[in-house]
């Protein structure tokens, strides 16, 4: 398919380059920058605590108990007369350091385990996966309760235990990354060139897991901070240790007399966890490419159609049998790319007549599928579409919204996709997917719809319609799936059928049968057809007229016989030549389907 490549869901592991990109991208994201600044400030504040306050965070002064904010205590004093500002600063040390302990333990356990399991697989992997599944089912807070009540009230101990409990998440991440990288070619190459496993891991695998690990670390850090707060709320933890949790502890005791005491540590905790979460989010976005942001900046295809020029603007009142079914004028499709737009269809005009087959030919990337999608209103949301007119049987289609388009789609204009298996909803039975549009468009009972679908299935050459009706897509073969999709397309007797390379994904033997099926259905229902293909053999077999496209532009349009006999453009000639060289026996034998033209003329 020719959707322009958006910069990848797939993490391409060319580590150094991508890392630079990542950093740059991150710095272009204001949210990420804000989060980084806040985290840096928090860290700096904790390190610079002695500079920022002259108070000793643990020294309590009876007369300062619950002192209000003032010159002596910028944020007041807590329930036992300790300076809140000093506690906040020094508390950051304990809280952040303890959270780091959790992160460190999680990674110290998770990384080696993940490398081991992912790289060597086998028994080690089985055991480790088993152990990680075990750990994942342990309710962390209960274990922490027991540890803190029975073993030690130190925040650091608690966080180390948390790190251990949480380490399976690191293990899973590292393992998954390693498994995928291990299959990469350059790792094979490295192995062949005699690098040791250790060096391969260090040189090739660690760099790849770096970025996802940073995200994971940020998340664990946030969880650790939250858990500290939760433990403090439960009255565990050691209040004589200066930490945000201990501050919360004190604040809870004074919640009705000095609720402001709750504000500061809660604010510090929320700031930290939120910044970490936003940073992780931004990192993920940066890794996952622009996909998400594109989606959110454009709501639906930007479609604009200028009023069709000329005499044809008057709308014919009746269906003009045998005449022009679809006219497209000057169609243009664009996609946003970094810093601009890329035009994938540029000024294409075409006409389909009722009962005739138009072949849309070109190499992949020539914009033929994009042209097909734009006629159906199926372009992805970020795409932009313009045309001087898209006139279907007297109605202007350009600029129609989803609801309005649905009056045509499925009912009067139908679509057969290229890849049969990925075009059936895997979660529903074949039957239910076929029945739904039939019921919607034809407004008939479920029983009538089922009967219609069963007869359709039989019509498209499925020998056991009942079984296929009840089957899920994964239970049927590709050829059968394509028959199902064809049945779906013609189920509401459309006037126009758009088939996007309907046979490319199929076995050669099945290809011919499917083409025959389309041809016979077209014949029997007198449909206009746009057949998108790169195969001149198919064109010769089935089409009346041909439009050749290249790089989004129209190269030439002609009747089939005319084109084969006397191609005008060099490009067409070149295409024809290359087709004939490896022509399939079937098309070579049959040649241009002249007889058919006679019949429909």
């Amino acid at each position, binding site marked *: 398919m020719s959707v322009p490549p958006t910069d990848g869901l797939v993490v391409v592991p060319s580590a150094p380059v991508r890392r630079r990109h990542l950093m740059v991208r991150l710095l272009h994201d204001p949210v990420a920058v804000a989060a980084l600044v806040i985290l840096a400030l928090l860290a700096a504040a904790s390190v610079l605590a002695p500079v920022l306050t002259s108070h000793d965070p643990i020294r309590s002064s009876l*007369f300062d*108990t619950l002192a209000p904010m003032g010159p002596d205590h910028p944020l007041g004093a807590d*329930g*036992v007369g300790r300076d809140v500002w000093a506690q906040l600063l020094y508390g950051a040390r304990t809280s952040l350091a303890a959270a780091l302990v959790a992160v460190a333990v999680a990674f110290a356990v998770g990384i080696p385990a993940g490398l081991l399991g992912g790289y060597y697989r086998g028994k080690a992997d089985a055991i480790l996966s088993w152990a990680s599944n075990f750990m994942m089912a342990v309710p962390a807070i209960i274990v922490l309760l027991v540890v803190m009540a029975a073993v030690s009230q130190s925040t650091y101990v608690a966080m180390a235990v948390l790190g251990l409990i949480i380490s399976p998440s690191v293990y899973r991440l590292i393992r998954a990354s390693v498994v995928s990288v291990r299959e990469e070619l350059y790792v094979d190459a490295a192995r062949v060139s005699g690098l040791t496993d250790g060096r391969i891991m260090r040189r090739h695998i660690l760099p790849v897991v770096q970025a996802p690990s940073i995200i994971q670390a940020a998340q664990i850090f946030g969880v650790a901070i939250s858990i500290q707060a939760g433990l403090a709320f439960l009255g565990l933890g050691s209040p004589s240790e200066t930490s945000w949790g201990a501050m919360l502890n004190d604040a809870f005791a004074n919640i*009705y007399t000095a*609720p402001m005491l*709750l504000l500061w540590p809660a604010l510090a905790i929320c700031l930290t966890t939120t910044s970490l979460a936003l940073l992780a989010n931004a990192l993920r976005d940066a890794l996952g490419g622009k996909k998400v942001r594109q989606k959110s900046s454009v709501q639906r295809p930007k479609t604009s159609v200028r009023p069709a020029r000329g005499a044809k603007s008057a709308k014919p009142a009746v269906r003009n049998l045998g005449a022009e079914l679809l006219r497209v004028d000057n169609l243009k499709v664009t996609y946003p790319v970094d810093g601009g737009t890329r035009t994938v269809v540029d000024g294409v005009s075409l006409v389909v007549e009722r009962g005739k087959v138009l072949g849309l030919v070109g190499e992949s990337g020539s914009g033929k599928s994009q042209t097909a999608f734009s006629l159906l209103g199926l372009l992805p949301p970020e795409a932009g579409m313009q045309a001087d007119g898209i006139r279907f049987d007297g109605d202007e289609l350009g600029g129609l919204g989803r609801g309005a388009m649905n009056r045509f789609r499925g009912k009067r204009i139908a679509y057969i996709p290229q890849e049969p298996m990925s075009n059936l909803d895997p979660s529903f039975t074949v039957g239910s997917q076929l029945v739904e549009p039939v019921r919607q468009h034809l407004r008939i009972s479920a029983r009538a719809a089922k009967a219609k679908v069963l007869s359709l299935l039989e019509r498209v050459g499925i020998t056991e319609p009942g079984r296929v009706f009840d089957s899920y897509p994964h239970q049927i073969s590709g050829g059968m799936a394509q028959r199902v999709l064809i049945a779906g397309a013609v189920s509401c007797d459309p006037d126009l059928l758009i088939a996007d390379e309907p046979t490319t994904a199929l076995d050669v033997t099945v290809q011919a049968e499917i083409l025959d099926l389309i041809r016979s259905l077209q014949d029997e229902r007198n449909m206009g057809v746009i057949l998108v293909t790169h195969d001149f053999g198919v064109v010769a077999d089935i089409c009346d007229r041909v439009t050749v496209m290249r790089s989004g532009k129209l190269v030439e349009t002609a009747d089939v016989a005319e084109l084969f006999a006397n191609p005008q453009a060099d490009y067409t000639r070149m295409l024809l030549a290359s087709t004939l060289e490896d022509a399939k026996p079937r098309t070579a034998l049959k040649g241009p389907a002249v007889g058919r033209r006679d019949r429909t003329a």
Partner: protein
Amino acid sequence: MIKKLAVAGTAVLALTLSACGGGDTGGTPGEGATGGTLTLSISQDMKSWDLAEAGLGHSEQYYQPVFDPLLRLDQQGEVKENLATSWTYDPALTTLTLKLRTDVKFSDGSALDSTAVKTSLLHAKAGTGESAAKLKSIDDVQAPDPSTAVVKLTAPDPGLLRNFANVPGMIASSTALTAASGPVGSGPYKLDASASTAGTEYVFVGNPDYWNKKDFPFDTIVMKTLDDPTAETNALLAGQVDGASITPDRIPALEGGGLDITKFYSGIVEGLYIWDRAGKITPALADVRVRQALNYAFDTKAIVKVAKKGLGETTTQHFAPDSEAFSADLDKKYGYDPAKAKALLAEAGYAGGFDVVMPDISTLFPEAQAAMVEQLGAVGVRVQLDKIPFSQFMPSLLQGKYALSYFKTGSTDPWNVIQLLVKEKATWNPLGYKDDHALDLVNRISLATGEEQDKLYKELNEYMVDQAWDAPWNFVQDVYASSKRVQVTTQPYSMLPPIYNFKPAS
């Protein structure tokens, strides 16, 4: 953005706290001169319905609906009749003869007679609960006739009558001593087991056969266990409970929420308790001048004002103002005088101060610990905090691990104080400190009565203060919050108002 949100959040919080007058709708308890439901919240769960394991203090209310005690205290703290209509001691003060009401039956239908009293008391005495500890002086109980019970004591026990007016004097049916399938008593209410959930909520319904129904106007009593102070406060504010003991910091919020606040003393004394007067662990403490120095070191007025939010009465003694042993003059004995404290320490040879180890109690009593460490440090006593899980606080003190620590305990009844603190085997004499003069006084108190006994109590009190046994700070003031639907009267010698002190607001 985030900051704004958080500030707004706190503003909401603060607003809510100061303006929670509107929360009077969620309550279920009924009103009226009689009848209706009384819902009380208690901060700790009850331990067992078995009187042998029963607790005191905050647990007392749980037992009051089901079990009736032998005696009762009036609102001045005087002992009055209840199940027993009269009581007399022999001259040696070791035989107590009780005359019992003859018209009382347990809720299982069996009669409450002297045999039942004997069985119940002897069963309770054998237990390990706090209540059982108050019965240790009982040697035997005899039942010469159904309406006469004779309690034989191993030694005179001046506190026994008041204890008989509380949980230790409660009588359980002989058929259900261990209360394995629920409590069976003769009290004004019966436990509705089907409506109760252990550990959460106990529902008591009126006992139609009770002999003294006029003192218990409510049809139903519900006791909720709410061990989280915030949840308890919210329950009070939302009108879900009619009464609960609260901590002082909740007073403004609860008063603002339209609840009545009652303050009272229950005889608890808090301060620095010196367990090691013999100097076994910290030799310095054997010197009376050192112990006196510790008394001078504390600015108790400031502690009460700031750390206790003004709730409390500074003191130097262990005996409550309500008790026979109290002497107002003694409270003037030590004032806040750090210079004098240092001088005394120097005199005792500790000019450079000394080191002590104490359990870290910042989880349980943060303010107290902060004040203590700060003020001791000011006179040169360097406190090292020993971090222990807080569940180990009590056991470690009881085992005598620490020479001194912050603590609070006490009783309005002077004999109970002696039992708690003074006797060689007293619970809170963990290092077994033995002072012959004090013990002689104790012995003489137990054998005396009336004014002579009062004089001896005062003498003991004065001796303990002079010898600086401990460094008390203040009598703890307890606070009880109650809804406008009920009237509450506090009761001397009780940490929580007993249920017969609750009346519906008319």
